[in-house]
């Protein structure tokens, strides 16, 4: 992407001639052109800027980010960290950012899994499966995402009310107030167990890397699974048990107007997640399909000739090569999910755009509000790009 063809003129590396002030000198022309363009753009920006400053002054519109520390007074339905309307605008915006990340991260994971499955299904030898995957990809990609979101939201709204909620499995309720699931009452012991799980997982990964390195040296296989079971499964359990083994299930129950307790997934979040996942999965499926097809057929045959099992062929030979083709377009899909999550505002999920929008409406400070939105997305985009570039560089073919 960032590959630049080297201009032959710079390769020629002419002996430094003195710059003559003449139009026929290429360097003079270059400088004049640049000054012209920069000057023009600078002038336009200055013009817009001075207009804006003048307008703000004449219309007595407040400026600056002072409002961030004022009380927001806006209610937010879903918050990952504690929030009440008495908190500041800054905290409200932070909640919005977390809500954006919540839908983007889950969406990225689900869309990747779902998209990969469909992409593989598209390549299936089973004609029916492959056709269905093909139709899915074609239809989902040719409809506007906003339309899909509104469609899902309309369907979820048409569900029965909480008093007539569908109850497919004990403790699970589906109504127009969202999906309710039983959930354990979170206590400190669970946090410790989670920490142990993360540490155990990290250690297992390190051990596995080490085992592979040693195996390459001496050819002796070192099984990873005992360590994996010990660290990932047993260790957290022991920690949890040692901390008193608390286990109280929080069942959702109808109290008053709504369900209380349990884990809630609101229709807005559900519709957004569903729409984003299904839409992006269509694109990811195509990327995965073309990535796998980009691996030459000889690679499959060679791997099979070596006696590898079909699953191992895919895992050890095909996928590592396909990933090199897949990762760059995948990056832009991940960026798209994040940016498309801003459509939340249309169906009432309170993401950063929705909250910044309300903020700019209440304070009348449009410039600051939009600047916040843009800044947030630019930082998220940049972070994802950096991470994916790092990952891409890691898996890239090391060329001599």
């Amino acid at each position, binding site marked *: 992407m960032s*590959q*630049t*063809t080297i*201009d*032959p*003129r*710079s390769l020629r590396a002419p002996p430094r001639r003195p710059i003559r002030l003449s139009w026929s000198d290429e360097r003079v022309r*270059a400088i004049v*052109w*640049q000054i012209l*363009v*920069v000057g023009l*753009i600078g002038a336009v920006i200055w013009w*817009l800027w001075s*207009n*804006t400053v*003048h*307008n*703000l002054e*004449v219309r007595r519109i407040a400026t600056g980010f002072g409002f961030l520390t004022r009380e927001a007074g806006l209610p937010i339905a879903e918050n990952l960290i504690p929030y009440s309307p008495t908190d500041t605008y800054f905290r409200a915006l932070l909640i919005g950012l977390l809500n954006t990340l919540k839908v983007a991260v889950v969406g990225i994971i689900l869309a990747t899994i779902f998209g990969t499955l469909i992409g593989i299904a598209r390549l299936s*030898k*089973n*004609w*029916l*499966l492959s056709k*269905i995957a093909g139709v899915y990809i*074609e*239809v989902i*990609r*040719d*409809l*506007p*995402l*906003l*339309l899909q979101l*509104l*469609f899902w939201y*309309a*369907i979820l709204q*048409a569900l029965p009310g909480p008093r007539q909620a569908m109850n497919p499995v004990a403790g699970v309720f589906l109504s127009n107030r969202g999906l309710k699931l039983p959930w354990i009452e979170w206590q400190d012991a669970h946090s410790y167990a989670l920490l142990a799980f993360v540490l155990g997982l990290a250690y297992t990964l390190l051990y596995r890397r080490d085992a592979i390195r040693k195996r390459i040296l001496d050819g002796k296989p070192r099984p990873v699974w005992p360590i994996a079971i010990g660290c990932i499964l047993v260790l957290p359990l022991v920690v949890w048990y040692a901390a008193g083994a608390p286990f109280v299930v929080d069942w959702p129950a109808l109290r008053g107007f709504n369900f209380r307790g349990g884990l809630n997934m609101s229709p807005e979040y559900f519709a957004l997640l569903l729409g984003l996942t299904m839409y992006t999965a269509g694109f990811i499926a195509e990327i995965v399909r073309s990535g796998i097809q980009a691996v030459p057929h000889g690679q499959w045959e060679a791997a099979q000739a070596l006696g590898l099992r079909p699953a191992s062929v895919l895992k050890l030979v095909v996928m590592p090569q396909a990933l090199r083709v897949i990762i760059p377009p995948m990056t832009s899909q991940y960026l798209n999910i994040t*940016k*498309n999550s*801003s*459509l939340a*505002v*249309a169906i009432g999920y309170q993401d950063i*755009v929705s909250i910044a*929008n309300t903020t*700019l409406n209440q304070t009348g400070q*449009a*410039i600051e509000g*939009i600047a916040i*939105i*843009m800044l947030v*997305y*630019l930082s998220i*985009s*940049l972070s994802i790009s950096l991470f994916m570039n790092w990952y891409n560089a890691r898996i890239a073919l090391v060329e001599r």
Partner: protein
Amino acid sequence: MSDVTLNAAATVPEAAPRSAPLTEVGLVGWARANLFSGWISTAVTLVLAYFIIRWAIGFVDWAFVNAVWSVPNNQTQACRDARGVGACWAVITEKHRFILFGTYPYEEHWRPALCVLLFVALYVVSAMRRFWRPSLALVWVGVLTLIGLLMWGGVLGMPYVPQERWGGLVITLILATFGLAFAFPLAIVVALGRRSNLPAIKAICVIYVELIRGVPLISLLFMASVMFPLFLPEGMNVDKLLRAQIAIILFAGAYLAEVVRGGLQALPKGQYEAADALGLSYWHKTGFIILPQALRLVIPPLVNTFIGFFKDTSLVLIIGIFDLLTAGKTAIIEPAWQGFGVEVYLTVGAIYFVFCFAMSKYSQSLEAELNRHRVR
């Protein structure tokens, strides 16, 4: 496909060597190979077939058998009774003119309708390779001007219609087509600028492209609707539709610039060097050697990007411009018709699908055709 194989097997003359057993060729053979090749495959086929048939029967029941096609003067009781078992297509029968043309004066609806036809004709003509010549640009200018004249009116006895009343499908087409027409030249300039070896120009182009691509279109549309008025000197006003159009042009420009840049990069270095060796100036080199080849390379991804914009124009819903989707949503505000969103969304979706599907099929066939000469 299977029928063809079957016929081919049947017309083999008797004298020919014995044909393969029926279980290897023909429909049965095809099915064995593609649907029932192993027990897993068989299971998958059966399960999928079961669900498809069930779903198809359910859908046909809902959409056709039990559907309500029209009701007398907004008496939607029949529709409400059929809820859950049958579709209420009466909402489309009643509101289709509104969904297609929005608040455009009712007796003047033939004008936007003609514009839609003109747009479609323009797409079809532009898609044919035999019309790929310079005069096509003139055709575009001519048709777009004609569309403007038709929409505004005020001449030839057509009453003037201000932009506030335009709406529906034609707005979607206007935003997408004008967006492309203006973004394309912009994109070429930016793409060239990004590959320029003049640092200041390169920096400006990089900043523009990355800035626009890093933020969602919604934020640009918000900017156009609430911030843009502050940028202009006092007293100067730009219509809401045009502001959205500018935002879409800027947005499309950045994405198209990357597409064009891809074409510029895909060109063999030898082309650049040869042009330099001929002593051509930068503009001659670009205009006569580089761009003609690069643009040819990027036509398929260009069509794909255009499909993206076509869908993205629906976002103007959020700033209250009456495009196809907004008109569809507004049609079901009226209390009598509330709650029939699914029918309207399916209809609007079908319109989007027809346009996008045609374009994507076209882009695929074009890609195959353009690649043919490269595959020897």
